[in-house]
């Protein structure tokens, strides 16, 4: 009951109920200001991570910059 | 009063004027000429440099480059065409012109039967490219008359060009529908003030209506446009810079269109034995410099040379950039079919628009071209007018054996 299933970067995983995206990232050791995210196809700015609560079945993409030409 | 096209050539012409081509040419040095010739693609500012007095000692060098560019882009083919003067009624008063309304000449226009007779006579010489001309008299020889003539001509020629007064987009579209594919429009001079001096009356006096005409023709569906300054009316370098800019600008905006340039120079025309208009003297050397500079600046532009120039000079100019010449020319109305010529004679219309200097027939021109190492090209388009292929019977037979 306290765990929900979500998909992050294409991988299924579980996380606690009522968790914000910001808290989810903190749990992974990710600085939320260094990434951008897509929640079910909607692009989220880092400022809104705090208010977005993850729900069962959510598809999350966490993207960051890497080296490229 | 005509309102110029919003994004037409007028603004670009203003920009070219602000460059002060005359000053660039006057101040150009030999090093500037060397720098220009060192570039693979000439820049806009290189063109006045090649037209400059400083470039004169380099004329042979520039001519060699022009020859190379011509060979690379056009090979050894020279297109042949002939003008057909349909009518000489004119309401303009161009001070330099043999058709001007003020001149005391008999006026005449061909009817459709005469157009067909002329078409047959010209087609029998082997020509497949024709240029139809009229004076400027919208009431008598306007868009509807012209379209009727074109419909006849399109049955005999694979390419029908027009050199007629400026028209609206709709009127141009009408000519395309009738079978025309190319239009020639000489701005005469791009210097607005001088233009007004030289065109004191008539519809042609509207500078911008004429300036936009090539673009309107393209908007109306024409596939080829031939521009021209009438060299000698004003500073030749300024007019050369303007016409090159006009061609360049059209090439950029209408990359699918074929853009070419004629380099006619003013020849004195006679009136009662007197020279009626004395233009600035455009010497042979100036004509050569203008042509080779143009070829270097716009390697892909066609260059047309008319029979205003004598045969010996036309032969000399061929390697320098010419891609199209006229042959079998008569600058009076009609004049190819014996009956039409006789009717013209009887009407008293005996004054041509200007005196031609190269009277070679199509056959003579063809054999001279071959002798000089060029291939005379009669038709270079797959599409366009139906040409001889749809003709039947005796005419078709005559054409095939011509």
């Amino acid at each position: 009951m306290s765990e929900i299933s979500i998909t992050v970067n294409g991988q299924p995983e579980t996380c606690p109920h009522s968790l914000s995206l910001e808290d989810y990232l903190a749990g992974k050791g990710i600085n939320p200001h260094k990434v951008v995210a897509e929640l079910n196809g909607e692009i989220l700015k880092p400022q809104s991570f705090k208010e977005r609560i993850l729900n069962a079945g959510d598809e999350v993409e966490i993207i960051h910059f890497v080296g490229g030409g | 009063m005509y309102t110029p096209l919003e994004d037409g050539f007028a603004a670009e012409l203003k920009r070219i004027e602000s460059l002060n081509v005359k000053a660039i040419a006057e101040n150009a040095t030999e090093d500037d000429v060397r720098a220009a010739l060192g570039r693979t693609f000439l820049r806009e500012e290189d063109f006045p440099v090649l037209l400059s007095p400083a470039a004169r000692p380099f004329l042979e060098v520039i001519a060699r480059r022009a020859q190379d560019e011509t060979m690379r882009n056009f090979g050894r083919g020279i297109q042949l065409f002939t003008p057909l003067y349909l009518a000489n009624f004119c309401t303009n008063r161009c001070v330099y012109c043999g058709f001007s309304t003020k001149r005391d000449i008999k006026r005449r226009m061909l009817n459709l039967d005469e157009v067909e007779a002329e078409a047959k006579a010209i087609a029998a010489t082997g020509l497949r490219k024709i240029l139809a001309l009229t004076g400027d008299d919208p009431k008598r020889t306007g868009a509807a008359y012209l379209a009727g003539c074109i419909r006849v001509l399109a049955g005999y020629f694979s390419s029908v060009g027009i050199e007629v007064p400026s028209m609206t987009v709709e009127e141009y579209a009408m000519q395309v529908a009738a079978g025309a594919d190319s239009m020639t429009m000489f701005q005469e001079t791009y210097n607005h003030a001088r233009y007004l001096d030289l065109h004191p009356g008539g519809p042609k006096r509207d500078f911008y209506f004429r300036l936009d005409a090539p673009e309107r023709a393209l908007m109306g569906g024409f596939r080829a446009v031939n521009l021209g300054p009438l060299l000698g009316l004003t500073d030749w370098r300024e007019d050369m810079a303007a016409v090159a800019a006009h061609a360049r600008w059209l090439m950029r905006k209408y990359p699918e269109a074929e853009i070419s340039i004629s380099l006619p120079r003013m020849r004195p025309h006679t009136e009662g034995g007197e020279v009626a208009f004395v233009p600035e003297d455009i010497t042979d050397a100036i004509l050569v410099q203008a042509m080779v500079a143009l070829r270097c600046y716009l390697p892909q532009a066609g260059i047309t040379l008319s029979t205003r120039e004598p045969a010996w000079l036309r032969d000399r100019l061929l390697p320098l950039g010419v891609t199209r010449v006229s042959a079998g020319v008569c600058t009076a109305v009609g004049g190819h079919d014996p009956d039409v010529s006789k009717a013209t004679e009887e009407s008293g219309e005996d004054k041509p628009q200007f005196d031609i200097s190269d009277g070679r027939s199509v056959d003579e021109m063809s054999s001279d071209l071959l002798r000089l190492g060029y291939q005379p090209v009669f038709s270079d388009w797959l599409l366009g007018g139906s040409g001889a292929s749809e003709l039947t019977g005796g005419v078709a037979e005559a054409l095939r054996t011509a």
Partner: protein
Amino acid sequence: MSYSDEFTIGGRALKSRLFIGTGKYGNDSMIPQIAESSGSEVITVALRRVDFSNAKGNVMQQIPKHMQILPNTSGARSADEAVRLARLARASGVGDWIKIEVISDTRHLLPDGYETAKATEILAKEGFVVLPYMNPDLYVARDLVNAGAAAVMPLGAPIGSNRGLATREMIGILLEEIELPIIVDAGIGKPSQACEAMEMGAAACLVNTAIATAGDPVRMGAAFGEAVRAGRNAYLAGLGRVLGKGAEASSPEEGTLTGFLK
């Protein structure tokens, strides 16, 4: 003596005409030194999913604050994917520049002109400063101009090949016909090749692999910075006489083209 020669893209005035990348470095901590040695003011980055099992340091930390970030859409195989990546990049707050890169052929890595033009049109309308990576094809370039690109980035040779200006003639045609800045991207392997592109009239060059994989990338960054400046100066100066072309004044003689003028 140095010559001032700024140029502007997307409203930003730039002094350096060398764009650099951040890919293929053995160690990202080299990037600040290369930014300095090359003098570059524009730097590219790519977007990828975060790998939670291997969250290394962030490349962004290495990029000097004064530099313009140019995110690319590498990895996109269609216009839609490129648009999505561009929007993600902008959401991160790095600005609205985007280098469109749509590659659906994984063997030759050549850009897809049709999809690139579609993405360019959509993003330009959304206010992005769009710099599309492209094959130096005149028709594609015209489509990109009409689609609202801020510059076009033709490839000099296949990406990462270090083969130089294999497309020299085609780029020459773009330089002749296209009014937008032409930024030569991909394939440049040596400073002399970047220099040649600039001599021809390119507005800038983007160099990544050739610097990142050099024996001494910091020094190679400096070499490219100087080469691009040298080429630009040569272009502005106007190339002088080319030996063998015979651009010398001569008086017409018999048998020449203009001898008839006497």
